[in-house]
């Protein structure tokens, strides 16, 4: 009985290790993928209580991103998570940003100047493709899900 328990436990550890290893390999391969045709991308973004237009910016990893920020009402900020860079704009006084989008994933853009009651929730998205973060975790979930279904064939449901 004891040896059976050990075997089952070891089996679980093996599965976890295999899933982890597989996920890291996929993620590593993804990270090593060279950026596709790095280009210079320009966006004119209008800020208005409590959103940006466009609200989602999609670029490729390696692109040089130039932002021109315009405010349509009050003083608004533009802070990019993960990149730690920011600018701001008053009505009639624009802000600008230039950076290389070298980190893949979806990053939230936040207003960095208190602009009204909903200010903490004034956000936009910068999506630097390919969004390896999402695909990494989605792959892990899928591997676990499919693995769980497959293991139903060979082992009892508990333990």
């Amino acid at each position, binding site marked *: 009985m004891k040896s059976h328990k050990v075997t089952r436990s070891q089996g*679980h550890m093996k599965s976890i290790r295999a899933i982890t290893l597989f996920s890291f390999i996929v993620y590593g391969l993804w990270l090593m993928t060279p950026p596709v045709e790095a280009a210079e991308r320009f966006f004119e973004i209008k800020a208005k209580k*409590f*959103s940006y237009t466009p*609200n989602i910016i999609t670029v490729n990893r390696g692109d040089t991103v130039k932002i021109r920020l315009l405010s349509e009402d009050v003083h608004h900020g533009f802070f990019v998570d993960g*990149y730690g860079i920011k600018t701001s704009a008053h009505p009639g006084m624009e802000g600008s940003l230039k950076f290389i989008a070298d980190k893949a*994933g979806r990053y939230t853009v936040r207003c960095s100047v*208190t602009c009204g009651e909903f200010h903490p929730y004034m*956000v936009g998205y910068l999506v630097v493709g390919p969004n390896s973060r*999402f695909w990494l975790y989605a792959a892990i979930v899928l591997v*676990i899900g499919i693995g769980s279904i497959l293991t139903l064939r060979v082992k009892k449901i508990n333990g």
Partner: protein
Amino acid sequence: MADKLFGLIDLNWRFELTKFKLIRNLFKSRWFPLLAIIFNLFIFVIILIAGLIGGFSAGNYNFGIMIVWILWWVMLMFILVPIFSRAWCLMCPFPVFSDWLQRGALFVVTGLKLKGLGLKWPKALKNMWVMNILFLVTTFFSGFFTVRPLATFILLGGIILLAFLIGLVFEKRSFCLYVCPVSGFQGLYSQFAMAEVRRKDPEICKNHKVKTCYVGNECGYGCPWMLTPFNFTKNTYCGMCLECFKSCPHDNMAFNLRPPGVDLLVDEKRGLDEAWKAFIMLGIAMVFFLTMQGPWGFLKDWVRGTSLKGYLTFISLHTAFSLLVVPAIFFFFSYLSKAFSGAKEVSLKKIFTNFSYTLVPLGLGVWIAFSVGIILPNGSYILHIISDPFAWGWNLFGTRSVPWTPVFTGALGHLQGAVLVVFYLFSLAYGARLSRQTYPAEEQAKRGWIPILIFLTLATLAFLWLYIG
């Protein structure tokens, strides 16, 4: 053979913290948790004052808004509920006034006869439905009370007043047990908690003729939550007031650490009210994310009520999604489960209800991931407001001028992704066991589990896409 979570943790493992004299004495003292309640009462007085004088100002520099909706909410979802169960109920100041009125004293035990009308709560409402509806209705105003100090004042003031009035009319903690909007989800998610209040030796309780934990004695009141601590089997409705530690003459109550989620396997008082609580919590999480952490301005305008049409659209869609759409999708997968299992003798209601508990770990994970996205970008505001709680120019701790500083927001996607994966694993681990409880035969359980597993996988992927995709 011991049933082990992930093949590693024995589900029967317990570690009793009250075996340490210091903790046991603390739990038996009448000063605890009263001192914690009084401290929180002091904080809530500041919150209410800040809410009242803050009026319509921007909430991110208001003490009430930041403490309640950033710090307290995150503490609740991060630490209190998943680790310590209903630890917030233990120290919640809202019912202190009705307790005082009913008992006629704050510290000492005055007698077994309580004051007030002491009416019984209506039998038809002895469930989570009132809490479900109240919590959902409260979220209709999320675009106001999470950002407007005055709205927070009205909400909290209303809850405190309601707790008092219900305490005047109905017996003991009827408000906490059946009404408090915050109580329901704490109860549901506390089934996942890594701590519990339980009796130690069932024989001692069996031979103890006067159930002092229920009726009270000179050392402690009978369970204010109207439960029977001598046969606790799950956390859901235990408010952790610790009266049973004080009233037990045999020191037979224990505060244990345990593996997370074991209550989900306790087949007692499972019902549609708790199932709907799980659906509502998932629905609200999605709506909150879309409106607060999503980039869509029109949704923010809807919840802020910039137009009546938009606001009513928000309420209608939110209600329909949380009360109907999520349960309907789950019902479909429950139907598939029954069909796949081939177990005609098992009712669809049982399948639907039992498997709804698989949403407890996933739902908790969804809320923790949501809360990470609230505290990391906005936590630095707390440094400002603790130094200047009433916006009167004070600088109590020298932190008034600390600028807005998002912390680790670059890693937010990884944190949210990892949290969702971990809690998805818990949902699967308990889901398989729930399937075995639901269906009489192993093969039926295996086949019936597959559609629910697919649902959980799709739900996790949906939240992953929403949060980081």
